[in-house]
């Protein structure tokens, strides 16, 4: 048991709380991970989000991850129904979800069980649990509660029971919709949050509701704050790392994607709903009109891709947003876009797979499908966002690349980025980020529709409305003049020109920067949302004296240059990924049969080096602690083996 736990007033002795002394000597800590878990509909997420935004506003580093149940209205008081949020707050920028939680507030014991099952806590975690169930009128519930407490004790967890419901009842008659603000108040005292800012945030949340609602939520907040002041000994301070007034924005990855689309000058998104991508479209459905844009909800994913391609052909590069199953359906359309060189931005918010898989969970399993999915040779550009800020900026890059290279561009995000919330510097939008208005000046009829530059494969494209540029786009093999041709050279030439574009783009890229020393025993390679976790894990390994560095890839097609050279400076290279790979030591698995993680597969072909991998499809974001152990174990194994 840790110090903090001992400081808690484990039992509420009497109700004369106002007589207890106010506790306000705060202990300075560098960071803490807080979870709030409840039944669906009890507002744990709102509570955590507010805590996160508040902390960001106070200049802290923040990373939040939502805990989303799979059902719409899961049954109350069940592990499967656990709905909640995890907020990591620190004195420096937070880049990932972190390890086990330091503190958790649970609205009932069953949702807590779910998180224990997900290994979210350890014996250091401070667990605060609403004790209302102990005195429930239903005996079954009372027994469940008692059993769970025993179970928790058995797994080494120290649980502190708090009279949350009871306290709330003093303020409002039905605390189910309000308890969360009481908890926010608790947490604000525990972490010395700025109450004025907090109250302002609460006002914002309920802005559309009546003044009375705002008032009662303020009251609940204050009650929680006061309760903690008087009954909870733990009290921390987390220093700010940035000026609170520094121009930062805080949002999740799907909102960042939506804003990126707005800032890229794209005017059309054609989509079909699918988790976890849809909320980006919801955001745009609310906001897109303010830049003159339009969200088209199509009848299916194929139509969504077709609609976007039609708009792109007509001069306005459009975007389609989806997730794995949608990518599968769009495969044929994307092949057409490659073949006929139609600029297109496809945003793939990856979820757990394969098939319908784990719709609300994170995975990085679409890399090979997006790269190789379309039959025939279909070169395309693939970018992967590593941070929420990338989610914003890469859309703008994607639109530009799509148009300059006349090619479809995938932007891979994932469920982790989609729902994670992080502050980043407010982008200063420039109007040259916007797509140029549709060019309607005449086209020089001497310039063919696919006037490929022999070296780069690039060509300018005529846009309907340009007099003299009339051509017929086709997915059949076609020559520079866009004419169908079945002869022996046409398809070869066309394929060459389309492929050349990737090589030409690669030529403009720089090698990735190495995090850590430029050479050593182990190089870790990652891509996508795992950036923060991997870097933190590598830092831990380095602090432990291991010669480990890492690089993180943003361009997956074409790959960034210099990889072979960078890898060869390390004794051992491995990727860390959120997708499936066979474990090394398992039945029937050997050097020949092992199926590698997706980037590892690519890099092995690319570098011809024996690149190892560690990957998993648990559906959860990676924890730096776990990853640092993986890395250290492999380093030791290899050293030991030699």
């Amino acid at each position, binding site marked *: 048991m840790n110090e903090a736990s001992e400081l808690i007033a484990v039992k509420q002795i009497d109700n004369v709380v106002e007589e207890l002394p106010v506790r306000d000597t705060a202990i300075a800590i560098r960071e803490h991970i807080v979870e709030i878990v409840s039944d669906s509909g009890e507002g744990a997420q709102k509570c955590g989000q507010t805590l996160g935004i508040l902390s960001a506003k106070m200049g802290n580093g923040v990373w939040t991850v939502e805990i989303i149940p799979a059902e719409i209205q899961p049954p109350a008081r069940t592990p499967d129904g656990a709905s909640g949020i995890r907020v990591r707050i620190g004195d420096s920028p937070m880049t990932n979800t972190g390890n086990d939680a330091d503190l958790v507030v649970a609205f009932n014991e069953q949702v807590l069980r779910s998180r224990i099952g997900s290994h979210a806590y350890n014996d250091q975690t401070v667990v605060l649990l609403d004790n209302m169930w102990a005195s429930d009128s239903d005996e079954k519930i009372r027994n469940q509660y008692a059993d769970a407490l025993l179970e928790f004790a058995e797994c080494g967890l120290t649980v502190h029971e708090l009279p949350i419901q009871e306290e709330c009842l003093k303020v409002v008659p039905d605390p189910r919709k309000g308890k969360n603000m009481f908890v926010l108040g608790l947490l604000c005292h525990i972490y010395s949050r700025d109450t004025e800012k907090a109250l302002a945030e609460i006002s914002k949340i309920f802005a559309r509701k009546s003044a009375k609602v705002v008032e009662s939520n303020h009251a609940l907040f204050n009650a929680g704050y006061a309760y903690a002041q008087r009954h909870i000994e733990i009290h921390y301070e987390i220093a700010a790392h940035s000026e609170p007034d520094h121009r930062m924005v805080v949002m999740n990855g799907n909102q960042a994607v939506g804003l990126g689309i707005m800032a890229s000058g794209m005017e059309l998104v054609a989509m079909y709903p699918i988790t976890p991508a849809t909320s980006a479209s919801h955001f745009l459905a609310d906001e897109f009109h*303010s830049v*003159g844009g339009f969200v088209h909800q199509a009848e299916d994913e194929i*139509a969504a891709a077709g609609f976007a391609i039609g708009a792109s*052909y007509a001069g306005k590069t459009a975007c389609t947003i989806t997730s794995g199953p949608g990518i599968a359906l769009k495969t044929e359309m994307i092949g057409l876009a490659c073949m006929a060189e139609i600029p297109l931005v496809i945003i793939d918010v990856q979820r757990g797979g394969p098939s319908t898989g784990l719709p609300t969970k994170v995975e990085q399993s679409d890399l090979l499908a997006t790269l190789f999915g379309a039959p025939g040779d279909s070169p395309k550009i693939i970018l992967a966002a590593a941070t929420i800020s990338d989610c914003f900026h890469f859309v703008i890059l994607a639109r530009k690349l799509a148009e300059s290279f006349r090619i479809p561009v995938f932007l891979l995000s994932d469920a982790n980025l989609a729902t994670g919330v992080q502050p980043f510097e407010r982008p200063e939008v420039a*109007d040259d980020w*916007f797509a140029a208005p549709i060019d309607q000046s005449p086209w020089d009829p001497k310039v063919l529709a696919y006037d490929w530059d022999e070296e780069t494969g690039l060509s300018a494209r005529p846009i309907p409305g340009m007099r003299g540029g009339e051509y017929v786009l086709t997915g059949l093999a076609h020559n520079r003049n866009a004419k*169908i041709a079945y002869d022996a050279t046409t398809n070869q030439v066309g394929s060459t020109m389309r492929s050349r574009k990737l090589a030409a783009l690669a030529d403009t890229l720089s090698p990735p920067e190495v995090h850590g020393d430029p050479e050593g025993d182990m190089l870790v390679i990652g891509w996508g949302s795992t950036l923060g976790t991997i870097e933190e894990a590598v830092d831990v390994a380095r602090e432990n004296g291991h010669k480990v560095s890492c690089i993180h890839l943003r361009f997956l097609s074409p790959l960034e240059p210099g990889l072979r050279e960078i890898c060869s400076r390390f004794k051992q290279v491995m990727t860390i990924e959120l997708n499936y790979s066979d474990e090394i030591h398992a039945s029937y698995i050997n050097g020949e049969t092992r199926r590698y993680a997706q980037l590892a597969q690519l890099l092995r072909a690319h570098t011809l080096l024996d690149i190892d991998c560690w990957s998993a499809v648990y559906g959860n974001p990676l924890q730096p602690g776990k990853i640092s152990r993986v890395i250290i174990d492999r380093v030791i194994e290899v050293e030991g083996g030699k």
Partner: protein
Amino acid sequence: MFGLKSDWSVKANDRYFTLDDYSAAEPRWCTGCGDLAILASVHKVCRENQLLPENTVSVSGIGCSSRLPHYMKTYGFHGLHGRALPVACGVKSRRLDLDVWVATGDGDCFSIGAGHWIHALRYNMDMTVLVFDNGIYGLTKKQTSPTTPEAYQTNTHPGGAVLPPLNPLTITLGVTNISFVAQVVDWNTPLLYETIKAAHAHKGTSFVRIVQRCPVFMDVMNDELMDDPARFLLLNHEQGIPVPDGVSKMFESQADHDPNDLSAALGLANDRTKIPVGLLYRNPDAGIYNELSSQGLDFTSEDKLAGVNEALDKFLI
């Protein structure tokens, strides 16, 4: 006279387009193929309306019929099998200035494209949709299509097609928000021309089912029909397709039909004894989706900057 503009004075400096200005490469359809007649009518409607070639886009799927764009000297999009409609909708979505045509086949539209067919009709975007219905898969050489007559022998049903043919009109007329449904045969060229012209003039999605000859793979359907004009019922109405001189007397059976009357249209479509020819239904008031999808076309860079910044500021901390 055809194609001569009635008022020369208005835009005296404008270009004047002849049929040649709309005709590209020599069509590669079989001799006697009905597609040729349809193409010719499309060319004539383009000329009649003096469409700017650069502002005209024909979109198609895959099939014999879907080759049409290659024979138009305009912009064209010869896309994927079954997907002409979503692409055409996308083309139109933010380009109200483009005149969009769709050429699709019975397989393309009613089989693999059936879902888009229903939904594109709902969107009712301003475009002219021509279904070249030869009752067979032409390009892939004689497989059963949804409209293949029952018992007709094809390569996938050598014992004869097993299902009664789908009736494209009854389904089309069942879609909410449809605004123009006509039927015609390719071999009555004056009527074909008038039908396509009326379809093009209509604002919203004009859906024209053209019964089309495929002399190579569908002998029964069209031969029998061509030899038996009594099978057809010509629909007359002042708001219908204008019936050119001389055409009317080719039809033994005729009926007055008010194209505003949906249930009468349904009755005609469901009548198995007669094939109605003309305008079945028209609703000029149906909502037009491109009026929504084109919102904000007039936004300047400043407007957009302001919009993005405002949206971003909501996330400021």
